[in-house]
């Protein structure tokens, strides 16, 4: 095996990127105060070092950053592995109110045909809930509203209500409390201009 040095070099770089990506995610959780470890300046510095290894400190158009991002995406190592960590986040729910010309109102949820695709819809709702950029959130909700509209062409307006699912603790559940739905945002879409008016609590 004469290519051993090549394999060795690839191994070193590949695992450097995996460790840097995973460390960056972990330091990020600590820095945002989501863990039991108090955040400090050292955490931010460590996160910056890990980001630098992944060329994230370079401008977005930098060829090295783009080349590295391409490799990371193609190898599936662009993110860390903190699933359901450090704590299990709240779930989200998106309900559509379909208003018809005759005053009738129907309610719909985003629908798919299989349980496997249902998990993907949950990922989409998490993505909508996580985004801090209002226009992107509105655009995502609008896209899902369009898919609902295709199935209900008679509806004249659609109100999309996005909320978080509050889960009871074990003690609360034993006392009779069940999961509840907390309103976060609402968007009104009309068929004429497809524009939205948003409301926040």
């Amino acid at each position, binding site marked *: 095996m004469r290519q051993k040095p090549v394999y060795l070099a690839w191994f070193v770089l590949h695992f450097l990127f995996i460790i840097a990506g995973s460390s960056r995610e972990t330091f990020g959780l600590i820095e945002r105060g*989501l863990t039991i*470890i108090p955040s400090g300046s050292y955490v931010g510095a460590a996160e910056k070092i890990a980001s630098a290894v992944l060329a994230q400190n370079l401008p977005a158009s930098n060829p090295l950053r783009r080349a590295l991002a391409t490799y990371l995406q193609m190898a599936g190592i662009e993110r860390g592995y903190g699933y359901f960590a450090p704590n*299990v986040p709240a779930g989200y*729910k998106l309900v559509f109110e379909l208003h018809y010309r005759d005053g009738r109102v129907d309610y719909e949820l985003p629908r798919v045909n299989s349980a*496997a695709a249902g998990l993907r819809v949950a990922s989409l709702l998490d993505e909508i809930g996580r985004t801090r950029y209002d226009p992107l959130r509105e655009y995502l909700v609008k896209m899902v509203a369009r898919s609902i509209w295709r199935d209900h062409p008679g509806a004249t307006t659609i109100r999309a209500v996005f909320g978080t699912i509050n889960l009871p603790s074990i003690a609360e559940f034993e006392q009779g409390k069940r*999961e509840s739905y907390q309103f976060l945002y609402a968007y009104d879409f009309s068929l004429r201009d497809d524009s939205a008016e948003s409301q926040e609590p």
Partner: protein
Amino acid sequence: MEAWKERLRKFLFPAETDYWLAILRVGLGLQVVLHSLSLKNDWNYLFAGSGNGLISRTLSEALLSAETPFVPRLGWLVTIGERFGLPEEAILSAAWLCLLCAGCSLLIGLFSRSSAILAWFLHLCAAKSGGLVSYGVDNFMTIGLFYLMLSPLPDRISLDWRLRRPSPKPPELFGFFRRILQLHLCLIYFFGGLAKSLGSGWWDGSNLWRALIRPPFNVIAPEILVKWKYLFPVAGACICILEMGYPFFIWQRRTRAIWLACICGMHVAIGLTMGMYLFASVMIILNVAAFGPGPFWAQPRAVSLTTPDQTT
């Protein structure tokens, strides 16, 4: 220093058989087939462009392009197809069919290398174009298929081997790629366990409870779960210990079998109690391929084709 180098060389390039690779190929072939079949009725709906699906594929692709425009995506295939006058729906259906065929080919070991590359490429296209609707299973399938594509295929139980009898590959190469998979799994579990351990909810069981009652993972009714409430803190702590301890105990001969069995058991439990069957199966496949041959069934010793002088 030389002794250390030699130890490292022996660790990274052990002489191995291709048993583990056969497990990885068959396992990922089956995974790709099940993954494709599970999305059969929703494939076009999930990955359609503007106006035809649940959410626009073009939005995910635009977000991806902001990071890098060079990652494969379904949009590339649609663009090529449109040049030949083919509609988007036909291209997406063809991509799904090709992914299913690649999975079947991997399963039987026909055109192993080409099938692995095709499966990796098409799965990556779907995972990236559906970035907004992707979850953990896509990430781990990409990792598995990436290593499979690079590994020295075909293995000896593949149809390729029986039909073409290719020249044998150096056993050190099989050992190297197995080490890569093993070490990657160690990092996955270590960082996953570390992140969980840093949250208070995994030690008192509340996170496990939340994970099991959170839609759409609420397969078991909370009325049943609450009867087992005293087990949640123990199970939550066990998950943290199992994951964080993985890189330490999986290498020890005495603890490897029990750790592997426990990790696979944990994934079976995740699959059954949270409905994440595909996530569970891909993790079990990666684990069994990486650490299965040896503790659970004996494999013949591989003999190095190179002398120590030739290894540098």
